[in-house]
């Protein structure tokens, strides 16, 4: 299936290669570089590139291209999903997934890749299993290893690999037993010029951090499970139980994992938590443009809107801006034409605004389109859809765990067309 893997950095250098079958010369990447040159943006490189003898399937994350070389028919999503899993694993192991981190830990990276694929077919991708086979590098362990000569590599087949619960290690022990669940909802919306909603939908996830001893069996129930339109589960969730009772019942993996992602459809009315007043005009013949932007809260259920960040790709004709924010800081990059305004918290009494003028290229005609405004924000302690966890119970173990649930709403792809 997957023949080889090349890691390419943003400047187009191959800094790591791994082959699972016969060696494929790195010249095969030339086709990739060609495509990279043709693409105006790094994101525009097509994920699947056919070459005379191979097919290149790549993903771009953290400004690194992970290029897999394929020789014969295989579902492309299979490869893409696997590559993303590799990135996730690196991130899990090294905290970050950067070129430097990979280069520093090249041996662990190699050991991981060796375990994750056998002959190009995924072998172990579950992070709990991998961590039993290859322990993540920590400073303490490095020191201990140098002194005692012990290794980072496990000698036993991880118990998870063979069990019906492959995601959980056995023999987990904690002195403080705790289970935290974060309900995070992201709102994707497109707002048109007049302020009316074109499309809005809520995507939610429940991320869990479970540190419980033994083999706990958890159930999580919601006050209003009907809200969830479409769900996807971590493999640990028992599907039958969900179908029948709308209860999440599962033996959790150890540590951090994504329990559930769900979708609240656009058919339900979605309350848009912020509004934007804008007035962006370019006059024909003049080298000046007006720019006015005001943000305000709307339907936030009394919670404050925080960490507001506005960015907008201004038209190519804009040379510079002279703007005055009522709060926060703004930057404009004259090269990429990217305007960023870090607003911070919205104070309902004194709405934040950004006003001023833009200078345009002299003689150039007026841009056809006003820029789109992308907004990011956070609302703590509230899930926009109104989803509420009813209770969390634990069976199978005797101790009493500490349980915590947190709600948060974030902006996903929140765009305002002007």
């Amino acid at each position: 299936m997957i023949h080889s893997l090349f890691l390419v950095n943003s400047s187009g250098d191959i800094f790591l290669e791994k082959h699972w079958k016969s060696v494929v010369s790195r010249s095969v990447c030339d086709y990739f570089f060609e495509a990279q040159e043709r693409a105006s943006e790094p994101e525009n490189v097509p994920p699947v590139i056919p070459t005379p003898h191979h097919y290149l399937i790549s993903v771009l994350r953290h400004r690194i291209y992970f290029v897999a070389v394929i020789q014969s028919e295989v579902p492309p999503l299979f490869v893409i999903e696997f590559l993303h899993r590799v990135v996730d694993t690196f991130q899990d192991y090294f905290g970050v997934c950067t070129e430097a981190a990979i280069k520093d830990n090249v041996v662990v990276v190699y050991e991981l890749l060796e375990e994750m694929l056998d002959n190009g077919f995924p072998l172990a991708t579950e992070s709990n299993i991998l961590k039993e086979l290859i322990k993540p590098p920590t400073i303490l362990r490095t020191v201990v290893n140098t002194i005692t000569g012990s290794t980072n590599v496990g000698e036993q087949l991880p118990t998870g690999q063979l069990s019906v619960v492959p995601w959980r290690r056995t023999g987990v022990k904690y002195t403080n037993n705790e289970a935290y669940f974060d309900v995070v909802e992201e709102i994707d919306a497109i707002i048109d010029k007049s302020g009316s909603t074109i499309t809005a939908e809520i995507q939610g996830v429940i991320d869990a951090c479970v540190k419980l001893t033994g083999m706990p069996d958890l159930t999580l129930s919601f006050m209003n499970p009907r809200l969830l339109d479409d769900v996807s589960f971590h493999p640990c969730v028992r599907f039958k139980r969900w179908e029948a009772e709308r209860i999440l019942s599962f033996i959790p993996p150890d540590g951090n994992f994504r329990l559930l992602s769900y979708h609240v459809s656009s058919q339900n009315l979605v309350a848009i938590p912020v509004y934007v007043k804008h007035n962006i005009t370019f006059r024909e013949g003049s080298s000046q443009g007006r720019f006015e932007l005001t943000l305000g809260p709307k339907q936030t259920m009394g919670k404050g809107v925080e960490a507001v960040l506005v960015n907008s790709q201004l038209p190519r004709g804009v040379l510079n801006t002279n703007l005055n924010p009522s709060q926060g800081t703004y930057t404009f990059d004259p090269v990429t034409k990217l305007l960023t305004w870090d607003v911070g918290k919205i104070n309902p009494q004194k709405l934040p605004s950004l006003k001023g003028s833009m200078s345009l290229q002299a003689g150039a005609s007026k841009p056809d389109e006003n820029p789109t405004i992308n907004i990011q924000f956070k609302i703590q302690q509230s899930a926009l859809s109104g989803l509420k966890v009813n209770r969390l119970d634990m069976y199978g173990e005797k101790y009493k765990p500490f349980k915590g649930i947190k709600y948060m709403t974030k902006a996903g792809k929140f765009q305002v067309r002007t």
Partner: protein
Amino acid sequence: MLSMSTNNSSYNDQGGADSAVEIGQETTPTSNSGAGFGLFSTDFKKNDDLKEMLENNKESLKLEAMKRIVGLIAKGKNASELFPAVVKNVASKNIELKKLVYVYLVRYAEEQQDLALLSISTFQRALKDPNQLIRASALRVLSSIRVPIIIPIMMLAIKEAASDMSPYVRKTSAHAIQKLYSLDPDQKEHLIEVIEKLLKDKSTLVAGSVVMAFEEVCPERIDLIHKNYRKLCNLLVDVEEWGQVVIISMLTRYARTQFTSPWREDGVFDENSERAFYESDEEKTRDDTEIKPYTMDPDHRLLLRNTKPLLQSRNTAVVMSVAQLYWHLAPRNEVSIVTKSLVRLLRSHREVQYIVLQNIATMSIQRKGMFEPYMKSFYVRSTDATHIKSLKLEILTNLANEANISTILREFQTYVKSQDKQFAAGTIQAIGRCATNISEVTDTCLNGLVLLLSNRDETVVAESVVVIKKLLQAQPSQHSDIIKHMAKLLDNITVSMARASILWLIGEYCERVPKIAPDVLRKMAKSFTSEEDIVKLQTVNLAAKLYLTNSKQTKLLTQYILNLGKYDQNYDIRDRTRFIRQLIVPNEKSGALSKYARRILLAPKPAPVLESAYKDRDRYQLGTLSHTINTKASGYLELSDWPAVAPDQSVRNVEVIEPVRIHPSICTALFHFCPDSSQSSEESEKSSSQSEKSSSESDIEQKKKKKMKKPPQKKNVKPPNKDRYQSVMCKPNSWVGPGFGACVCVCDFSSCRMNLLRPHLFSRRLSVVISCVSGPAFVPEKSHNLLHRMTGKGLAAQYQFTRQPCLYQPNMVSVQISLTNTSDHRLEQIHIGERSPAGLKIHCFNTIEFLEPDASVTVSMGIDFNDSTQAANFQLCTKEDQFSVSIQPAVGDLFLAVTMTEQDFRKEQGKLQGMNECSATITVTAENTSSQPLNRRVAAMANVGVVPSGQDNVHRFAGKTACSGAVLLVTVELRESSAAVITINTEKSVMGSMLLRDLKKSLAQA
């Protein structure tokens, strides 16, 4: 990469460099190992000191060296010259070092075949290691070394591993099959045998890998799947996610060859299938009873039902593969259940979006309705990548219909203004397609496009003109207004491509705008010299067409233009001018052709068809690479058409083997057991590693001898030398209903020695292993006293042989013990203490924390009697007391029933003649002369399975010993006057004669 010869020379260089070690020594290992590789000289020196480090005795130095070498490999630097130094460490005790050496070997063995052979014996040894991880990784590396010489060794190793007790090792062997096949396709036939065997495997771990091997090696042998089809369907939810993808795509292909099309007579089937879907339990009976023109094969339904939950998978590849399965296999009205999940995937990474959108694009052409409710999910965001934008546009266009077109067009208006001009151009094309598809909006679209002609951007205008041209070409009669309008625009439009297109349009339909066309030509004649080439060409074209239709008004203009063209700087234009002049102006030379000038220039031209680029993509299976790149990728397997008549359904029938009944208490015991078991296995591991350490490091020789000392094993399984087992876990209330074992029993066996010299023995073992253990024909109700309540101070215990294969380890006999507390106080911590003989292997039950008065509990344990009737003595302990107890097996309880055909029986019997046979003639009682009571009596006496017999008077039974797996064959031949001959064939002649004695007694009894 270097070729063989250069490698050899570099190896020789290395030999010479040995003497220069001292020079290399100055560069002691520094921490900044990554730096300074650029210069060849330092590179050379570094490699030298690496070599030295590898030859050092210190493990840590070796490890450091290997780490740096792996760094070199990762960078793509050549480290092949270190091969001899590295390969020496292949037998290292340090597991990390060993793994890194493996990495190196796999990378370079192909180039250094001769040296690679040195490592083979190490792997062969490791293949017999008691640790399954080591066995598996040895097989992985052995099969990854692409050295043709070792193909026979690989073949043997694969065959052996395929019957390993550890599913993990079996999984590895499935992977190895593909490796061997790519190395030597001639081994196909042998490999298919192994695949066939592994396909029967019930472990979810193996399923994905073996199907992968099947797809790679012998996708055409669809017959191998029949018997495993239902099992694969049922296992599917519990297979690991990558295996699911492979299995689903294989089953899609399979289903298309085996079932009839569900797509006929949609309407009739509608209601039935809808209900069947939600009331799936009753659905089978319904399918049978209802007489409909089309009834779905229950197996077809099984596949659809069992894949549906996987739509909720977090793995996008799994969701996509289920979606394509529904698309290709489900009745039309059920396909839409995949929509939601596909739309969900659009939230995932950019690359995932790209593939999913492509597939939706193909689907949405055929089935608009599926995605129409989710139209808004395909609205374009300014932050999307260009290829995502154009795919979304494609889908929106496909979804457009009379009802939603106004919404879509409003959305398109925004896109047209996008800063991404390539995307804006794409939008214009999309508008054009909407206009042709939906006649109601054609005029609106045309007007909108005409407005765009005044856009400042060249690409937008050009694209609009081109699209308008196409639209008008389709229905020119009604649109002379627009042509007039465009003629007026000509004064303002500067984009040459657009001007050219307008000129072409006017020329083509000059008869519909008879007044304007000559005027346009007049204007063009005026500006001809300053026009772009492409416009000049079209002007010449226009002139020629007008000359033919309206020569009165345009003759002079045409001549003027042709004269200008004659002296143009561009030779294309000069050439065209000359050609046109000869064609249209009649003179004596041109004669024949000019008569047809009108028919040549003004021939009716077919209107271009505006259709989706994804129209024909559905010839490829959705979700495949071929679909993505729209060409057949190598190794693409065609999806066949539905057969007109379904092939025989019964091929999928499997003789029902009773699932192992697990007592609920065992189940829970197992469930709570896990932590303990891993501890105890760790302990045993420790003790063994200590013993290993005690022997000095270099005494591999001695170890070899140790192995030799062990008596040569004749049976396929030798008694394990360590009390090792892996825990068993169940996922209660698993995703799957009852019907397949919820428990997977995993045992780690030290595998038997691979015997190269006696292949016939090897093959025979295989045949024995294949005959599967079946459930017991009879379970004796009788329980025996283990501990009397008086001696046990209130604790009473009874035991019973369940005759089931033992869960913990197959060579144990499973015993069920019921403990009762007859005292008036609670008994705490009931567990098993010391045992004798000391080597007795017992799988203890979990410590029972407490037992209330008058309560009783049933637990299960496994005892390895080692094929003898010697009693197992152990201590049953409570918190306060210890009681010595013993379990005495009857010889019949030491067997496991085996299913076998008569043919196999005869074959096995033929091998067990002479010493291995004992027989006796007895007089049986009258009631035992008929087959049923006789079968019952034999089964009661010994745990053997009945072999179907062709003769009425001969009854055959087969079993195997629990510990060594030796075959036991019992034949009872009834003769006249209630005489009977009992024959027992087994290698275990002592057990044979003991059983014979028991049987004699039993059958002679009334």
